[in-house]
């Protein structure tokens, strides 16, 4: 499991993030998130607000974003919550980055189905490009994290990079995706298997074949 400890509380950190506040854009989004919950229940919005804060930090630093302690304190103030309660949430969920990450946060799934389908090679390919687990690469572009199941077992192996999934990977396909990202292009998201659309069975259906084109009543065959 990656290091979930908050980045140390240093004077530099305070100086950089002490004045953090939602900009107009994010303020609107935050108010929208708050409006989803009834009066007196605004603490419920802690998760969307942490996400918004992380995204704004990302925009300000040109990375995926992370949650410095002053930003967590800002969210706590915003919701009138004790900071420790917000920190509990932030350290619990893996999607909140507690330390700085690169522009692209490459999260490789290493759980059993992906591992059986070759996630070790994917991780090796990432490392070959200079990424190290939990660290920001020298060019500031990449951070590699190994994560648990992302629910894409049918199209294993997969990586999640920022908000998009890239599935059915091989080291070559991953390289193509990462190269495109490095150039500032947006590669095709989802499955990288030619001819495959989403997570439908590769090579065509093996069961319920009669259901492909029309509705079929199997009950007589039981």
């Amino acid at each position, binding site marked *: *499991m990656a290091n*979930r400890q908050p980045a140390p*509380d240093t004077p530099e950190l305070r100086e950089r993030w002490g004045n953090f506040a939602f900009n107009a854009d994010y303020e609107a989004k935050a108010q929208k998130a708050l409006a989803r919950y009834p009066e007196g229940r605004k603490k419920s919005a802690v998760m969307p607000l942490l996400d918004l804060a992380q995204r704004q930090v990302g925009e300000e630093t040109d990375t995926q974003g992370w949650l410095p*302690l002053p930003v967590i304190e800002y969210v706590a103030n915003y919701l009138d919550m*004790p900071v*420790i*309660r917000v*920190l*509990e949430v932030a350290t*619990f969920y893996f999607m909140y980055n507690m330390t700085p990450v690169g522009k692209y946060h490459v999260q490789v799934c290493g759980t059993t189905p992906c591992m059986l389908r070759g996630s070790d090679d994917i991780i090796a390919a990432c490392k070959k490009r200079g990424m190290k687990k939990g660290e920001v690469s020298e060019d500031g572009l990449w951070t590699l994290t190994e994560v648990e199941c992302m629910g894409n077992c049918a199209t294993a192996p997969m990586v999640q990079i920022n908000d998009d999934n890239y599935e059915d990977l091989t080291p070559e396909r991953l390289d193509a995706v990462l190269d495109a990202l490095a150039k500032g292009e947006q590669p095709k998201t989802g499955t990288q298997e030619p001819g495959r659309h989403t997570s439908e069975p590769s090579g065509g259906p093996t069961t319920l074949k009669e259901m492909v084109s029309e509705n079929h009543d199997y009950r007589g065959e039981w």
Partner: protein
Amino acid sequence: MPKVTVDGQEIDAPEGATVLQACELAGKEIPRFCYHERLSIAGNCRMCLVEVKPGPPKPQASCALPATEGQEIRTDTPMVRAAREGVMEFLLINHPLDCPICDQGGECDLQDQSVAYGRGGSRYHENKRAVTEKYMGPLIKTIMTRCIHCTRCVRFSEEIAGVDEIGALYRGEDMQITTYLEQAAAHEMSANVIDLCPVGALTSRPYAYEARPWELKKTLSIDVSDAVGANIRLDSRGREVMRALPRINDDVNEEWISDKARYQVDGLTRRRLDQVWVRAVGGPNAGKLQRASWEDAFDAIVKAAKQGGDGSIAAVAGDLVDCETMFAAKRLLAELGSDKLEGRQTGLDYDCSSLAGIAFNSTLAGIESADAILIVGSQVRHEAPLINVRLRKAAKRGAKIFLIGPEWDTTFACEFLGEDAGLLHDLPGHVADAFKDAARPAIIVGPGGLAANALHPALVLADEWNLVRDIDGEAWNGFNVIHTAAARMGAVMLGYAQKGGIKDVVDAAPAVLLSLGADAVDYGAFEKSLKVYIGHHGDAGAHAADIILPAASYAEKDGTYVNTEGRVQFAEKAVFAPGDAREDWTILRALADAFGVSVGFDSFAQLQSAMIEAVPALGEEGIAPLGKLPKGKKTPKAKGAIAYPIADFYLTNPIARASETMQRCSAELVHGDEILEAAE
């Protein structure tokens, strides 16, 4: 009332009870770690598993399962036994086997339940988890590797103390209990988490490695650090009090005590007066305190009193003395022809003619049910932390709380109306409306209010709002006063209250002033008097004294105390006083001999009976008969900005001031910011 059977025994469980409570009613012991009667239900330790029919055929957590009609509960089946063994084994997987060096050893829930319900050995061969220690302040020592994640401490700080500072970070195996950025837990009740912790993760820092529970002599006592009279147990070894722990008393302190009550005991061994001192009159050391014998000291006192003439003697009671001491002094003074007795050291002169008019009438437990509360001049967190806990409960139940006085950091929803006591005569409309609509209205006058002359105006309001009423046959008296001195109510009952306060004593200019551990008196006003300090700590009183007679602290004598409700409680003697120090009443008895008068008692038992004969209420534990709430006088009016008397919660009495632990708390928790600034 759902009817359930527990191991074949049919019982009626109360409405809303859980299966665990039903089992307890049936006399079955259910092991548990996270469940605690006074905290919310978490259901995360899984130790309380039982078998319940109807329901899924698997063990169920009884603490979180409501008891319903017709349930068949089994606590003795192989399934339950196996479940307990399994949970125990899992809990012990990451728990270090360091009981021999653990301070919780001997009073550890995990240890006890492991013996009673565990399987006797572990099958775990992997490395155990280790967790870094977390700093939680000068009182709480943490060894977080021992933590079993019951979250009792988290729930205590959130629900009871009302200061969200402890939390559980990370998750799963990595879960760690900590405060935000490892700041010190800084509220007045923080150390209660030490008692709550079922393992040795949170232990007492000052008491670390001091003693084992089985070496300690346990004495039932009463806390004197505030006027709540929390029930405590003093654990002593030899002649030293090692620690103070709360006793359960739902009427007074539930099962909490303040940090000061718990940790001032290390002050009992420091700065003690353990011999007689007399200030030299002439010679090279004139004006300096010299060691002397009891006889010399008594002679000097008698001589001075004789010079002053009949009845030229007065007594001022300190904040920590017991009723017996005060009564013995009163008897002595009566024999000498004086009734100049006073307990309000700082010059307060509120009306003490009625006990009900200065007591916490709605009772500590009762204030929880109040639905509108007006607090006049009380920083409750500092003056009576245990009452603050009750107020928080009231606020959580929906009570509207208004405060008059400078703003402080409350732990409950409330509204500050302003700082001026004059507001009592001119309350905003919504406050008056809230009280008119309230079913159980209450007023609390604190020491700040008493000083600002707010007692009578508050009594007038009590009359106006009909605070004394009958609610469905139950008497309700919503008029309350919070005192800060453990001795106050007893002192008033024994007549230690002059009409004009201590000013009357000053005006009488007594030749001899007996100071019964009074440290807050302005002794400058008694320049002409021979000041005799009968007390236990070398504090302000002893510095000003001409003669010091070493006496016993609350831990070193039997005694009766009356708390702010008027509740009479007995404390027992835990240890002997150090050196030449004697129990206070014996000093006064010997002084009577020196004067050649008879006070009518030769033993503590005789003294006590004489006291009970004079004030029968002191003979019976429980709330003394306080009489009817008096009618308030319309004049003089309350006025002036309210000021709270307690500047530093940790250093309010001579014992606490002598305590290293309390000094550390004060330096770190009260003055921590200043120290940080100085360092920068």
